[in-house]
């Protein structure tokens, strides 16, 4: 040991000598001599600048605060004057199912939810017609039925051509452009129009001076101005403007297209390395010619089942089965025209073929080309604090798992990486919102249940090949994980805080597909062009002049109404009412001949379930599928097939777009709530009332009676 001590002493002496030399140099030199290059110069300058700005802003905020309070009072923004609570925390677990929750509580797997149920409230939460996330979350935030917020599905139909468009937001090119030869110079940015109507309850809270942090609540894109911070959720597009287009780069020559959400890109071998590209948005300078921008990347296979990637100037190494971090990519169309995105690379295979999965290119939250937060700096703030994160509305790539581009493990890894980011954002928002509203929606619960329900059932068509003892307990683990999250949140609240855990709907099996367009065709309501027995996507080959009804999207059924649809043939009024009655009678209780079970358990007339200024945009009927059934993949895309009922063999094996009475959501609260049948439409008025605000007259929801004391 002596030699070690000696070496240590020598090293220590050397270190001290070096420090002494440095100190002497710095102390003895003139101040100007202490300047040691631009690196140190930048460091010193930017540090002092940062401190200066921070100090100035802190002082400003400190001294401006009383004046801002006074300004609030003058504008009658009396925060917390009549409030029963100091803070409301709403955790939205998309798709958390009450029956599964009860089952796992009974099995002792959810101790924190059990505690909430025991000391506070647990109820089933009535969902919306139809029980689809954008519809239900729109109702959650506005406190009104869909007839007043105008969201009935992910998709709405264009009456002039029967084609779908995204129901929540419309993105168009710039208003003006300048054409020079074959080039088009856009003058201005893209135009984004939110299609959801109604006013989210955090606007009223903000008006009253209650600060709100709202994270990833669906249908908040484009973000609206209010007094608080908001990060948009479901319905934020990717950089291509789609709801998520993944990319499989492969050396395999198979050229068939993916049905949903993905593109196949060739990888070219070049000696020992490979080259491919990430497709990006359309070139804005070529004016709708369809030219897409690209970011090239190279793969250099190494020993040990790993490869070095070069994407722009960035280099990283991946092993087979590994994801990269978020990689910034810049799609450049020329000087001054570029789009900034982020994506992750997943190395699927290196030998004998090379395959790389690339996530949809998300809008870069640190340099957003479209507004994804309010204020715009909030998404930047989160990106600076935690690093890049998924911004795409449907960030978990369910299509890639459905198309077997990703396997279960890769999909789960992606889900939980996004989930971890969301947790960090939540806890930061909780820290920043010691008073006010903090609402955060987690999508993982929805996506994982959609994709792994097959392992919960003995005989799901999508998992018949998987022996029971080899089925992973993914959903149990998911609920347990969410319970732990709730536990950590409960550890941060006091008795003046209301904690609410809500879900927009529950979940059921999706084992059998119902092609309602096929049923309409076989029963004479939908006609195909002469000689056709099936249609293509989006009603290709449908004879509209003989079609009385059609369906697209998940639950809506439409009459081909004269004066409304381009080629409508049904007269509005008594003819339309009679047709609706006829369809309801025939469809309600429609039996699946293979199982003898009802594929449809309810058909609802929209005139009776909706009320409001946007009812005209609603479907005519809402179809409530039975437990185990859902609209078929083809029917959703406006396709007529020969089969009405068929097995669902996709990984997407659980669903909720069925009869709303079968899939209520959950409501947990740390306060006692006396109402026996709470509904998601009641959340907004309840929170407004708890903060002591008068309820706007147009709300459909009724505030719950919430006990003042809490013992979490």
């Amino acid at each position, binding site marked *: 040991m002596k030699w070690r001590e000696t070496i240590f002493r020598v090293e220590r002496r050397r270190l001290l000598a*070096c420090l002494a030399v440095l100190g002497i140099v710095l102390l003895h030199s003139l101040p*100007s*001599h202490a300047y040691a*290059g631009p*690196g140190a110069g*930048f460091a010193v300058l930017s*540090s002092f600048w940062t401190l200066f700005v*921070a100090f100035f802003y802190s002082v400003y905020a*400190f001294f401006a605060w009383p004046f801002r309070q006074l300004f609030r009072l003058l504008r009658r923004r009396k925060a917390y004057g009549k409030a029963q609570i100091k803070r409301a925390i709403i955790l939205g677990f998309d798709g958390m199912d009450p029956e599964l929750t009860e089952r796992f509580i009974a099995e002792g797997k959810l101790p924190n939810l059990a505690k909430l149920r025991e000391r506070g409230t647990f109820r089933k939460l009535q969902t919306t017609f139809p029980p689809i996330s954008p519809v239900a979350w729109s109702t959650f935030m506005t406190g009104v039925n869909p007839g007043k917020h105008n969201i009935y599905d992910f998709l709405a139909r264009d009456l002039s051509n029967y084609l779908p468009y995204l129901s929540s937001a419309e993105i168009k090119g710039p208003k003006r452009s300048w054409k020079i030869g074959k080039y088009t110079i856009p003058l201005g940015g893209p135009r984004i129009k939110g299609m959801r109507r109604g006013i989210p309850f955090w606007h009223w809270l903000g008006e009253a001076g209650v600060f709100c942090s709202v994270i990833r609540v669906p249908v908040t894109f484009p973000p609206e101005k209010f007094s608080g911070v908001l990060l948009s959720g479901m319905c934020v597009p990717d950089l291509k403007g789609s709801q998520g287009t993944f990319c499989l780069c492969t050396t395999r020559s198979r050229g068939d297209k993916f049905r949903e959400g993905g593109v196949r890109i060739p990888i070219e071998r070049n000696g020992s390395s490979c080259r491919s590209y990430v497709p990006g948005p359309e070139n804005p300078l070529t004016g709708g010619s369809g030219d897409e921008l690209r970011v090239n990347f190279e793969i250099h296979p190494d020993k040990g089942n790993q490869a070095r990637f070069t994407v722009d100037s960035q280099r990283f190494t991946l092993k087979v089965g590994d994801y990269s971090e978020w990689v910034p990519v810049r799609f450049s169309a020329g000087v001054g025209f570029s789009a900034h995105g982020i994506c992750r690379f997943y190395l699927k295979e290196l030998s004998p073929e090379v395959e790389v999965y690339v996530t949809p290119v998300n809008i870069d939250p640190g340099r957003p080309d479209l507004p994804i937060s309010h204020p715009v700096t909030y998404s930047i703030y989160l990106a600076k604090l935690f690093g890049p994160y998924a911004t795409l509305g449907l960030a978990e790539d369910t299509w890639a798992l459905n198309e077997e581009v990703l396997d279960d493990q890769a999909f789960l890894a992606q889900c939980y990486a996004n989930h971890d980011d969301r947790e960090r954002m939540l806890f930061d928002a909780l820290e920043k919102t*010691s008073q006010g509203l903090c609402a955060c929606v987690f999508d993982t619960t929805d996506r994982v249940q959609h994709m792994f329900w097959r392992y919960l059932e003995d005989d799901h068509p999508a998992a018949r090949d998987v022996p029971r003892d080899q089925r992973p307990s993914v959903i149990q683990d998911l609920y347990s994980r969410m319970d732990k999250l709730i536990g950590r949140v409960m550890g941060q609240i006091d008795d003046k805080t209301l904690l609410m855990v809500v879900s927009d709907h529950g979940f059921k099996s999706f084992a059998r597909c119902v092609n309602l367009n096929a049923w309409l065709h076989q029963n004479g309501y939908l006609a195909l062009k002469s000689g056709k027995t099936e249609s293509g996507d989006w009603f290709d080959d449908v004879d509209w002049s003989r079609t009385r009804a059609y369906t697209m999207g998940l639950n809506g059924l439409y009459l081909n109404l004269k004066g409304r649809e381009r080629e409508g043939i049904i007269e509005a009024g008594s003819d339309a009412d009679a047709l609706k009655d006829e369809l309801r009678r025939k469809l309600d209780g429609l039996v699946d001949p293979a199982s003898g079970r009802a594929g449809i358990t309810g058909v609802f007339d929209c005139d009776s379930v909706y009320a409001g200024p946007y009812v005209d945009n609603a479907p005519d009927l809402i179809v409530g599928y039975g437990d185990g059934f859902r609209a078929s993949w083809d029917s959703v895309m406006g396709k007529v097939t020969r089969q009405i009922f068929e097995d669902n063999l996709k990984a997407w094996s659980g669903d909720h777009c069925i009869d709303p009475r079968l899939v209520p959501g959950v409501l947990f609260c740390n306060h006692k709530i006396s109402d026996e049948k709470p509904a998601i439409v009641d959340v907004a008025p309840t929170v407004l009332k708890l903060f002591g605000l008068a309820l706007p007259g147009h709300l459909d929801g009724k505030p719950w009676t919430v006990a003042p004391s809490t013992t979490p």
Partner: protein
Amino acid sequence: MGTLGVNVPALIVVGISLVIGLVMVVVFRYTSDQKEIHIAKDRLKAHLLALRLFQDQIPVVLRSYGRIVVATGGYLRLAFKPLLLVILPLIFLIVQLDRYLGWMPVEAGHPFLITVRMDNLKASNEASLQLPDGLAATAPAVHVPSENEIAWRVVAEKPGQYIVNIQASDETFSKRLVIGAGLQRLSPVRLRGKFWERILVSSEAALPENNPIESIAVQYPARSIAFAGLEWNWIWLFFVLSLAAGFLSKSILGIEI
């Protein structure tokens, strides 16, 4: 100005600044933890944004300020780690440049001071100056007893390099001085001991240890460089230009500073 009307010192400073700006940024790139610096800078920006985003919440503002101070410390720690590697060579380079660019030679016909500092009053009273041909004292020596200093006002007839001798305690000590114009290597002081100060400001051999003279200084005029319509001390011009060059290089090379 040079013979062709070219501002040679300014050209030298610009050239050196550009090269050093580029080299230092590249050295910084390879001696620093780029990823950690990127994260540290992003955190700083996040805390700054928090001040604006949550400005109505005083506790958040104060907490953010505290975090900014801590994050700044962390960032400086990361940024100054590479500095440890470059500071010594760069300081010696700057010192060498300072020999040429910091002062100008004394012009012929212009009086200047030669100042000698002794370690005791008696020695300073006995010291005398011996001038070579071409140099002449223009006034009697001035004694500053409180500083143990003695100063002579001298003038040169023509440009050239001269050696002046100081007689003290029966010994003679020399000092080199330069009369003329343009860029010349100058040593404004000759020192006894004081290793680091000698390294930084003198380019002459040390005075013997066992003699009463601490220093012999020549009062060269400070050089100012005309650049962009302003008169600059060369180190400030170097500071500004090397920062600009570094900033440009880091942006082009994608280096995190």
